[in-house]
């Protein structure tokens, strides 16, 4: 399956084999009453453009926190984060929101589709946020739904879709605005094995093979193996 538009985009990215994600000395602590809990303790990471990195680790090891920091949702206590050449630590809240809107795609364990919007509208939402003209958006939605194999469910509401279908919509939504970085948090965590395979295949096709950059947090060995490299998160450090 070929996606002409997407391919052109990714091809452009590939011309400059730069580092897409650069993390240095990242530290993040949370307060729980009097106690300070160190979640990330000096994380360093470089991810090349087009690379798929799997983050492994037990629950509470700091995977989600790390993803939130990469997505501009959270701010570190210390350290540097640069995504697509943008230094996140220098951005204001509003700038980080706009950064997310334009540069990041999220895929969640529990899909997080907007229940009151149809499948198509869930995708349109992101395109609208990125001010894509509505005719272009329409074409883009068709293209994406086609790509994830849900062209016939465009006007369905999420609640009538299966988990796997919902996650496919979520992937389409996450890629709709051509983000620089796709962040996926346990994308198969709520899915059975065969559905999980479908979803991984989709990510492979739509992201990796198109040269997209992707960081996937997981505790599943299968998903970890899917990455170009797998890193273990342990005691707030990457190993």
């Amino acid at each position, binding site marked *: 399956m070929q996606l002409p538009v997407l391919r052109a985009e990714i091809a452009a990215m590939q011309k400059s084999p730069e580092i897409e994600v650069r993390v240095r000395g990242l530290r993040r602590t949370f307060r729980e009453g009097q106690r300070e809990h160190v979640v990330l303790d000096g994380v360093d990471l470089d991810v090349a453009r087009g690379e798929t990195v799997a983050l492994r680790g037990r629950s509470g090891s700091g995977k*989600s926190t790390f*993803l*939130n920091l990469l*997505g501009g*949702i*959270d701010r570190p206590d210390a350290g540097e984060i640069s995504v697509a050449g943008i230094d996140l630590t220098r951005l204001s809240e*509003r700038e980080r*929101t*706009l950064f*997310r*809107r*334009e540069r*990041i795609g*999220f895929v*969640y*364990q*529990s899909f*997080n589709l*907007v*229940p*009151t*919007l149809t499948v198509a*509208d869930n995708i*349109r*939402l*992101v395109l*609208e*946020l*990125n001010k894509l003209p509505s005719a272009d958006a329409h074409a883009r939605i068709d293209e994406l739904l086609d790509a994830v194999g849900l062209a016939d469910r465009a006007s369905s*509401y999420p*609640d009538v879709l299966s988990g796997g279908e919902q996650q496919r919509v979520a992937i389409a*939504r996450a890629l709709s605005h051509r983000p620089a970085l796709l962040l996926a*948090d346990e994308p198969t*965590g709520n899915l059975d094995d065969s559905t999980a395979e479908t979803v991984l295949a989709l990510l492979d096709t739509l992201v990796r093979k198109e040269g997209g950059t992707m960081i996937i947090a997981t505790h599943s060995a299968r998903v970890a193996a899917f990455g170009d490299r797998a890193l273990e998160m342990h005691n707030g450090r990457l190993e």
Partner: protein
Amino acid sequence: MIPVTYRANFSYLLRHPWQLALAIVGVAIGVAVIVAVDLANASARKAFLLSMDAVTGEATHQVIGGPRGVDESVYASLRVDAGIRAIAPVVEGNVRVGERSLDLMGIDLFAEQDLREFTGQVDTAEMDDADAESVFRALLTDPTAVTMSRTTANELGLEAGDAFDVIADGRTRPATLFGTFDSDGTSIDNLLIADIATAQAWLGQQGWLSRLDVRIEDGDDAALKKLEDALPAGTRVLTAAGRTRTTAELSKAFMTNLTAMSLLALLVGLFLIYNSVNFSVLQRRGLIGSLRALGMTRRELFTLIMTEAALIGLISATVGVLLGAWLGDRLLALVSLSINDFYFRVNATNVTVSAFSVTKGMLAGVGAALVASAVPALEAMAYEPRLAMARSTLEQHTSRFLPIAAILGIATMAAAVIVLLASGQSLVAGLTAVFMLILGFALCVPLVVGIVSRAIAPATTRAAGTTFGMSVSGIAASLSRTGIAIVALAVAVSATIGVSVMVDSFRGSVSDWLEQSLQADVYTGVERGDMDPTLIADIVALAGVEHYSTSRRAWLEDDESRVQLIAIQMAPGGYAGTEILDADPDRVWPRWEAGDVVLVSEPYAYQNAVAAGDTITLRTRSGDTPFEIGATYQSYDINASAVMLSRATYDRHYDDDGIDSIGLYLADGVDADAFVETIGVLAGDRQLIRASSNVGIRELSLEIFDRTFVITDVLYWLALGVAFIGILGAMLALQLERTRELATLRALGMTPAQIGGMITGQTATIGLFSGIAAVPLGLIMAWVLIEVINRRAFGWQIDMTVAPGILGSAVVFAVGAAMLAGLYPAMRASRVEPAVAMREE
């Protein structure tokens, strides 16, 4: 020890204090309004009854007469010729001291015996400083002497021995306060006691008694018969209790309407409780699932939820009762004002909190909480253990229920129509039907809103973007929340539409009527009593007066009712002022002048089910006399049950040559306002009279009209307050439920402002739906209020006019109120952390 299962639930509520608080506040306001209206009504009524009791004392019966009362020679004859002793004469009238209006009660101390407690008190040690002997001597020998309760004296700033002016019968009379007495409460305050001679002289009632108080031992029919046999024609014996009741009944319709409005507030409050409990149950579906999995039975679960509801109801009701007592105190002033304007003098200064009112309020609060919680509790019983029920499944439940609710609603409305048609003149039945209509309509609203919002969502998405489309489709998708909020707001707004349209139509009719009735250019007269005949002669002799009319209003009482007699001496051209409804005016007026027929007001005709051509009986000088009704005429007078006689007819049948007002028809070019001043100068010290141009009277009348409806305003603002809290609660609940969704949207790149805008858009849409739904319901209510309630309560026929402005502003108001209520939830929603999206349940 509270079971852990209960603790689990309650701690949930405690961790969502705003939700608990809103439920409590909503119900509390509903309960408060009920209690307040109940207390205000009861207190006004009680104050009136107490004062009547104090004034009536031990009297069991009262002898009443014609327009002027009872000829005093009747009294002398009863004592001397018939040897009847347990009777006491009373001369009553309204007087003013400064700005304060008081009832002057003239009594014959010798006839009082032990009829009245407070007159007995005057001679005991209760008297302050002044010794009773001098007070009594003074009352009998000093024509300026009066006494009053200590409370009243204090309020007037008077002390025993002080001289002051009393304005009675339009004249200033010097008075001296000789001693005061204890009044143990409000019952006999506002009363000026004087010797009967003084009262007659001041009120210009020489020769007449307002009534005779009679004491007849219970069951002593012989004594009653002896009294009746001794009385001349034109007088009647009424039981004191019955007379008090008849007077109190005058305001019954007014009070019933107030009560109905207070119930409206509770009805809106009921939606709120349902909303809160339903929400708290849904919110805890996981917890409930776990409890069920742990082995809690359905019955136990039901009990758990209902206990919680009862507790919320109890707290709400307690808060509501306290709030109601406070509110009632304020409401009482308004209620008293209206009653004083229209019905009878009542001096209720303090709300007396009765156990009955409190109980009613508590029952209403707890009962409402239980009823409203039963549905969600039953729903919760159906939860499968451990099933983490999806939101959409819930909405499916709801949407399956909606058509059933709508069918139920239509059935209720149909039943309401049947009640309306079948209930004759019953006011209570009429109001019940109004509530059934509201309820029935309310049941249909969610279905319609669901269908409409789903239908227009795609269009709005196309037209206004996904964000706003989400606002609209979100309403349909969360009807289990928003539906109730919409209904509550719609009911409240429809009440404002209904009442506004009614008041507006009413005001229009009254205004037209005033314009028509006030044919003369200038009116002048005294509030009560007689105009000085020489003054009348001088006024009508003034240059510029072309014609004049005279009028006399008098009350005719009977066992069951009171009828106002209006004796008119028409001026040429004055006939147009009275709109004849059911006969040919050209034929009626000559017969009326000739004394062949009388006219009855429309309310009289309605209440007594009579029409032109029927015969009514009026008590006259010569006893019960039949009169043929010539026609019915239009009247919006509040004491509207009236019979209009020509002056000549009146004079033939009643010993009363008094005139209380005259209408002056001025020559062209004579300025009415200047003429009013001329009259004032002419009257000077001779008599305090009121004079006003017809424009002035119309304005004054409408001012009083508007003042009457201030109280309705207050009540529907309270209903709106409840609805407002409903929206606030629903939106907060939604926001809580949608946290993850909102976080996702934030993660996807929506700014806080966009989130806030989306929520505000949603509340605005809710307001819009409510406002639109309120329009038909409001119009139906207006129609019922005008055609059924007003007619049944007062007998008025009002032309319904709908000013589009009322409807428009109601919709705008609904949107505004909803948006206002949505502000805080929107603010909270915009603050949702995007990181939440990542967290798993």
